[in-house]
């Protein structure tokens, strides 16, 4: 089964599970159709469409076996980038915006373009420091937009 078939199966499963959950929703006497009416229509449609995608995937593979094109894509770097961002999201409420942002920008920059020598590390540090400070100054001080405070650091 190709990506289409797998995606179709995943959406079909999610639609059916959610559809089953709508059956437990209580009807509100104020509204004639209840809170599950519209979700059932949507989930029924997505279940049908995803089933269609699975069937067409199976049929098309039977007819014409697809030749996969080889592409030189750096998926480990994508996975690491997501992981670094997830760490940033987790660290924000504990370390606060300034420290977490400094670490994230420095780390992500080093990950995407590994610094060479002291000059390279210096650039990454300056970028991280400037991003953290300038965004904090612009948003907190100038635009009065509150940014996350750190539970551990207190700022």
């Amino acid at each position: 089964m190709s990506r289409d078939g797998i995606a179709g199966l995943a959406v079909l499963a999610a639609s059916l599970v959610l559809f089953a959950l709508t059956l437990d929703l209580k009807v509100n006497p104020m509204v004639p159709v209840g809170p599950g009416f519209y979700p059932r229509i949507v989930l029924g449609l997505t279940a049908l469409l995803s089933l269609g995608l699975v069937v067409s995937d199976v049929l098309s593979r039977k007819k014409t076996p697809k030749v996969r094109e080889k592409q030189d894509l750096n998926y480990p770097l994508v996975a690491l980038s997501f992981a670094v961002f997830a760490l940033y999201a987790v660290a924000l409420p504990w370390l606060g915006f300034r420290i977490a942002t400094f670490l994230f920008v420095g780390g992500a920059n080093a990950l995407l373009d590994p610094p060479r020598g002291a000059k390279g590390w210096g650039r990454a540090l300056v970028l991280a420091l400037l991003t953290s400070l300038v965004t904090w100054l612009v948003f907190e001080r100038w635009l009065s937009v509150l940014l996350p405070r750190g539970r551990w650091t207190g700022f």
Partner: protein
Amino acid sequence: MLELLGTALVNVAQMKYLVPLFFGTLAGVVGGALPGVTITMTIIVVLPFTFGLDPLQGLAAMTGVYVGGSAGGLVTAVLLGIPGTPSAIATTFDGHPMAKKGEPGRAMWLGLWASFFGGLVGGAFLILSTGPLAKFALEFGPWEFFALFVFALSMVAGLVESSLAKGLLSGGLGLIVTVLGNDPVMGQKRLTLGIPMLEGGIDFLPVLIGVFAFAQIMSEVERMGGAARLGDAVDRSLSLAVSHLKVIWEILSRPFLLLWSAFIGVVIGVLPAIGGSAANMIAYDQAKKMSKRPQHFGSGVPEGIIASESSNNANVGGSLVTIMAFGIPGDAVTAVMLGALTIHGIQSGPLFIVQNPQLAYGIFAAYLLAHPLMVLIIGLAARYMLRVVTVPKAALFPVVLVLCVIGAYALNNTMQNVYILLAFGLLGYAMVKGGFPLAPFILGVVLGDQIEINLIRAIMTDSDPWLFLTRPISGSLIALSVASLAFSIWQHYRHRARVAGAADADF
């Protein structure tokens, strides 16, 4: 109308509004010029800066981004042969050859002035048609609104050439996001999956930011093998000096080409989710078909540049009509603008222009004033912008993600939206890898609640379901939805036949 527009122009020309408009236009031009950074990503980056501003200041900045971004792509398209945005693809066909033939100034200014005039044609349409269309939409009941939103969604989902099922499924996934959390009619909890943060439902802005920002950034990251730089080979000493009167005459002496290209841009802008990328290609194709010397297209003819650039800026005017008259975002950029309105407690839709005339005319004025600003910025800074495009993406992307986090967090000062941003970032990237289009998904997320509210209202008013078909406007819109899907199916089979034909030819 003219009095309101005059007052708005005077108002927006004040420093209070002119400064955000200028910086928005500048950000748009730079974002548009940077290959790999779209107007959508630029407006997502600008969004958090608008939180501390008043609604018109914020919307002026966003309008500036939209206008500036639509023209910014021409800088790299002409000078590097790399379109900064998809809406400048057709500009490279003749702009770059003209620049290579030793006329970079002529190519650049032809594009810039064509953008200016095309944008003004789009502006005239925006100003003249928004009011009457909104007035027409005021006669809509819940049946008509339901049918209109379904039509918009069916059109967007059906535009995917490669797979209609994926387009429709993508729209359906967007609708699923809106059914999680709570029922928008009675506020009753539903489908929270035991996750407390879903109890209030999911805001569409973090979803939109996550889906678009991550889909784009990670698609670039997967191709990174080091710090890719652009423009290193550009001769920065090149002269862009040109006789402006001569260039303007070159454009205005082709009035039919200018108006027809702008008309194509406007019409495509009004239709949801087709966008400037299609407008410039269609306008270029039309210009070639109408030309007496089509064989010269691609070698550096002015008609190609004029058609492409006038259509993509006129497209902005058309997109703004759809959101201001009907409350339907034509693309991701206007979806962010819709989000900015919601943050300030302003309801978009047919009542918008009646209830907020100063804001509506302020947007018109910002749109008009953004054009001379765009000419000024690109005219003065085109050569220096080539230095900006040499910024390594490894430095740019972390900064963009930080701004995305601020944009999501500042919506209601909770980390919940940052987690939603990450979750939908993963989903957005997975969708791109699976070949699922993002536009129907976002439209589903934006319109889902409104579709449900209007469906329930219609049923509560009269339980007869045939009213959706028997009321003239509603019935027509449902018929158009069916026709749109039928057309998509036909287009899909034609595309498959074409692909199969091409594959046969290869072997």
